């Protein structure tokens, strides 16, 4: 006990300079939504099906990584504590509106968002299009649960706080940070089911790194985002239904008709099938917007004359799940194909 007391006193003395300086520290908002980074498994070697331990609360994150609080005054907004498969339009809008409210405050320097990695790229791109601020927003997750040996979550969190207070991160749009690597939200995609280096931007690469000496940027993204985006969700409570149709040899058109019957206002095709031709015409006849994306994972779908003549929108190099996000927002503005193609060209 005396030993513990001495240790505590020592810790307090050591922590004192941090406490004094806390008033001068930049303020970072931590928005938590859940995911693997907020999951615990029943034993520490378990890297799969890790929903058998208690959830990690925002307070747990701050307590386990005190180093982050030495860099910034971190305030928490808890949005949810669920896996990324459960993130829906309501939560997306709540998150985006919450970020807009907090980032508008002059004393807030930036924000960090925790998220499950499965659909992280979709949420990050949604925020890239709807957050009205130049301040850094850094979306993070983890590939290994908070309870695992060699868990990646704590360093991802620490690096995210560092990035959120880095002046060079201002104006670069929403960032995704895992494995020390900083990606722009538009092209980043999850590339591996379990490995820590899962996030990549195929063909174009990351825009910077959170290295141990400093946070360093090599690239600025050039498509429209955040403060330059035309999308305003401040008075929106729902978004049009848009679904994704995969394409493969002999794919049946039954799914296309079913989605239209279900009320889809737009369909994104991840590839084509001869069977789709008539179903697409039927869908377009009821006012459904068609976007052609691709299942290959990289490369652009070109807005050729032939694509335009069929009233189809080319997704550029947005993957189907990102094209879906952009189409949902675009449909709040217009259903006119030429205008929709302009939006897909610019974002």
């Amino acid at each position, binding site marked *: 006990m005396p030993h513990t007391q001495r240790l505590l006193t020592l810790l307090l003395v050591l922590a004192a300079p941090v406490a004094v300086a806390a008033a001068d520290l930049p303020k970072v908002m931590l928005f938590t939504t859940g995911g693997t980074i907020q999951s615990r498994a029943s034993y520490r070697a378990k890297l799969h099906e890790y929903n058998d331990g208690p959830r990690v609360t925002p307070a747990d994150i701050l307590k386990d990584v005190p180093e982050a609080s030495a860099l910034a005054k971190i305030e928490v907004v808890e949005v949810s504590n669920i896996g990324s498969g459960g993130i829906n339009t309501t939560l997306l809008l709540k998150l985006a509106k919450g970020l807009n409210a907090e980032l508008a405050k002059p004393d807030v320097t930036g924000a960090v968002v925790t998220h499950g990695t499965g659909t992280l790229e979709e949420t990050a791109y949604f925020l890239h299009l709807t957050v009205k601020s130049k301040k850094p927003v850094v979306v993070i997750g983890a590939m290994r649960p908070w309870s695992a040996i060699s868990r990646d979550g704590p360093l991802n969190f620490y690096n995210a706080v560092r990035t959120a207070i880095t002046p060079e991160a201002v104006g670069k749009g929403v960032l995704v940070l895992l494995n020390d690597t900083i990606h722009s939200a538009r*092209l980043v995609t999850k590339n591996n089911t379990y490995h820590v280096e899962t996030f990549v931007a195929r063909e174009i*690469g990351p825009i910077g790194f959170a290295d141990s000496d400093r946070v360093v940027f*090599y*690239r600025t*993204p*050039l498509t429209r985002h955040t403060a330059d985006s035309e999308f305003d969700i401040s008075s929106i409570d729902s978004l049009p239904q848009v679904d994704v149709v995969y394409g493969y040899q002999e794919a049946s058109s039954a799914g296309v008709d079913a989605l239209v019957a279900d009320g889809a206002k737009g369909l994104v095709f991840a590839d084509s099938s001869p069977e789709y031709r008539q179903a697409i015409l039927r869908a377009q006849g009821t006012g459904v917007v068609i976007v052609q994306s691709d299942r290959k994972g990289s490369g652009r779908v070109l807005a050729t004359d032939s694509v335009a003549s069929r009233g189809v929108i080319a997704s550029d190099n947005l993957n189907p799940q990102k094209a879906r996000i952009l189409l949902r927002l675009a449909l709040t503005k217009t259903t006119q194909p030429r205008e929709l193609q302009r939006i897909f060209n610019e974002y």
Partner: protein
Amino acid sequence: MTRLATTRTASIRTVAALAALGLLAIAPATAQEIPTYAPPPPMPADTSKLPTVVLMSMGGTIASRGDTRLNITNYGGGMPRVDPEDWVNDLPEIRGIANIILDDQRAPRDRPSGTETHEDCARVAKRLNELAADPKIDGFVVTHGTNTMAEVAWYMNLTVKTEKPIVFVGSQRPWTGLSGDGPRNLYDAVRVAASKEARGKGVLQCTNQFINTAREVDKTSAYRVDTFKGVDAGALGFADPDKVVFLREPVRRHTVNSEFAGLDFPELPKVEIAFSYREAPGYLIDAMVEQGVKGIIIEGVGAGGATSGTAGQGEAIKRAQAKGVIVVMTARTQGGRVQDTPRRREAKMVPGDNLLPEKARILLQLALTRTTDLAEIKRIFDEY
């Protein structure tokens, strides 16, 4: 080198002899293998409105011919070279993109390949600086052999003072090769150089439809056409069939913002590169110092390490530094940064960031024309 040349001459002789005897059905390749069934697109009625692009030749595989069109590895040698005029004649499409001014900066015919020196670089940089000042010129395409293209492009990125696009281009297969990549690369490079979007992005490199920056681009494959990749940070954009697209712009200082831009460097201080590996000896570094180098780039293991022990590189580096030689640490990992750590600061070692050793060499050479102050050199490596 000599052996290669002999083999090549011998094979050409064989081809010629066989052809003379009428035993060889294949005609020697003289022109680019471009399909002729589709006519070139119509030229714009008024070409005066097109941008003006200088097509500068520094040679390379893209300016080489093979004895047959299947020869895509052992070309050049005694074969006639591809003159800049040949490119325009073989590829009339580029005249529909821009008004082309040809500028031949190749080494003399009698000089073997692989002998390009800094003198050539300095001459071309000076020429680019002069031409860039001409308001009638909108952009530049420079051809170069692919082996050292990235280094030369990086030198221009630091020394040419212009916002006008400068696009380096080359090919993996000779101009005469079957499925030669040269024509498409040249066509795309002219499109990029003629595009407004390419302005102010520093010196670019465009092959295989990718647009890369001079700073990060690296040749990663000996023969494949997808050889050029951006180290750590990827490409800036694409020369796609529909348009030239930029998705990124570089953050580090270059061209108009470079403190070395617009200046002539007829000579540069001597800087060499020492590779590191298990048991790499210190005596190679001692030899460099004896030869009078002003700087040494270590291509270190891992995050920037050299061998230790009395015979190792570490001790030799200290001896070199004692004589005023500046030492920069880079990594042989071809990716990842060498960082400014306390131990490295104590060792008076300049961290090379994620520059490839051959590019760190050029930056150190330029830095040493200004200063030998360690802090100032570190600043330069931080900013470029």
